[in-house]
């Protein structure tokens, strides 16, 4: 059997290293912790979205040509390629389109034993076009009881604690 790339050729190329080799000091290491900070300009559409979140409301924008109500709001409709039209308030309730039960956090470490797993979901918000979803977390419900099509409602932070961010909604819960 002919082989252009053989095991011998490949084995010669790279040497493996394990976590233990590093811990035991078998290799010299250097560490760098970057200090990379940004202040993103959010523009009029996202800016209004965040300001309304501070007021305890969710706002979207309508594109009259495809008749979609866009969430998060955009200054232009990406499918019709034209500026969007009026602002439209939408409700803070919705339907779960899909969800996940996650036992790992963003650093790929396992959550501590006994802690409730994360349950992020894509939630189609009432009042926006069908299929217009946002990503958020679900809570106050047992993970096994979540199903696609479940109705949920937003749980807001108290007005004094809101800063104008997506986290002003603590999570969504079934109702």
């Amino acid at each position, binding site marked *: 059997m002919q082989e252009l790339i053989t095991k011998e050729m490949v084995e010669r190329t790279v040497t493996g290293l394990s976590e233990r080799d590093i811990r035991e000091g078998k290799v010299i290491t*250097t560490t*760098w912790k*970057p*200090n*990379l*900070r*940004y*202040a*993103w*300009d*959010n*523009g*009029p*559409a*996202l800016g209004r979205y965040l300001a309304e979140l501070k007021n305890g409301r969710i706002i979207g924008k309508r594109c009259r*040509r*495809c*008749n*979609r109500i866009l969430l998060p709001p*955009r*200054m*232009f409709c*990406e*499918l*019709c*390629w034209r500026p969007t039209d009026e602002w439209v308030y939408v409700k803070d309730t919705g339907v779960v*389109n899909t969800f996940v039960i996650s036992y790992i956090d963003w650093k790929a470490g396992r959550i501590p034993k006994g802690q409730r797993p994360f349950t992020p979901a894509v939630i*189609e918000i009432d009042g926006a*076009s*069908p*299929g217009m979803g946002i990503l958020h977390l679900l809570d106050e419900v047992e993970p096994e009881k979540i199903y696609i099509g479940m109705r949920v409602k937003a749980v807001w932070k108290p007005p004094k604690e809101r800063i104008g961010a997506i986290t002003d909604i603590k999570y969504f819960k079934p109702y």
Partner: protein
Amino acid sequence: MGERERKAKKLRKGGDRERGFFQGLKDESFLERRFPMTKRVAIIGVGTTGFRATTPDLSYRELTYEAATKAYMEAGIEPKDVDAFVSTAEDFFEGYSIADEYAPDQLGAVLKPVYTVPGDFIHSLASAYMMIMSGVAEISVVQGMSKASNMLTLSEMVGFAMDPIYNRPLKEDPVFIAGMEMMRYLHETGTTRRQCAQVVVKNKRNALNNPNAGHGALIDVDYVLNSPMVSYPLTEMDISPHSDGAVVMVLAAEETARALSDKPIWIRGIGWCSDTPVLESWDWAEATYTRLAAQQAYKMAGIRYPRKEIDFVELNDEFSYKELQHLEALMLCKKGEAGPMTEAGATEIEGELPVNPSGGCLGVGNLFELNGGQKVLDVVLQLRGEAGKNQLKDVTTGLAHSWRGIPTATGAVVILSN
């Protein structure tokens, strides 16, 4: 139910989230097209938001949308006519990983061929050019954007590009690399600091007449030499301040270009080259990457005597001495001649070889990966006769050049003519 409602309902397809193929896809004709090999490619539309120090009122999406709308309008096309898009972005400059994710929406490129070139705008231009020349596209779009004002720890970010084992642990502000290079350049060519300062004076003055430029000023050579020292021999005024902005350009194959535009600007030659990134091996006085890129471009354009055939140049002058170094590397003058040329006024707008009539990076602002875009934009405007107060007379061939900034040794050159 009215016609519009019926159409909208059909597009939405009701409760099932199944999204049918929207515009750009319902019209699958762009997949049908097969183009004959073309000999030439032209730029038929450009759009920009202008360049200024901050843009707090707009996010990156709106900036690009504005530039794209202007470019498409000029070219007389809609996004559905475009066959391929190329965007320019570097992750850490944008502030999020995989910057190409956020490219299609504001270009009207949803579900169309799009990819990102982490390089200079002229690299993306080269990609779009090659796509048309290879027969896979007839109209392509190039985009670039800078949101430098959003980067709070800018010198750390630039320093993050240095070699992590050999250079970064020195914990120096990366500007020292430019300072070192300038020392060697001045030493080897005999250029003086005054001549470098002259570059700053010229470019900032040119920028005052450029409505797109963000950092025009009326200063003199002593002001430059006496401003605070940053990294000897670079003073604060020797270094370009940064700007925000976006540029979008539309390219088309010859036949389409002639049909859509009365003033197509032809790409006669294009070249790009990267020298080693290892600082310790650098050729400190010469910008070899520029020389090799220029050779490639001149060969393609059939130019044998650049000084005679190039009417004006827009090149990278991020640091004042760089304009002189690049001028020599572009073979537009001999080594060591650029300084005296500048002093004699040959590179002024009224001179025999205008350099950076738009104001260059020093006058417009450092746009990072968009730098090449600003240069090509200004060459196009000059060749079309749309450069306003800084308009040069009787120009037919212009050269746009770019360098990716410290700590790289990568440059690109494009030669355009009307």
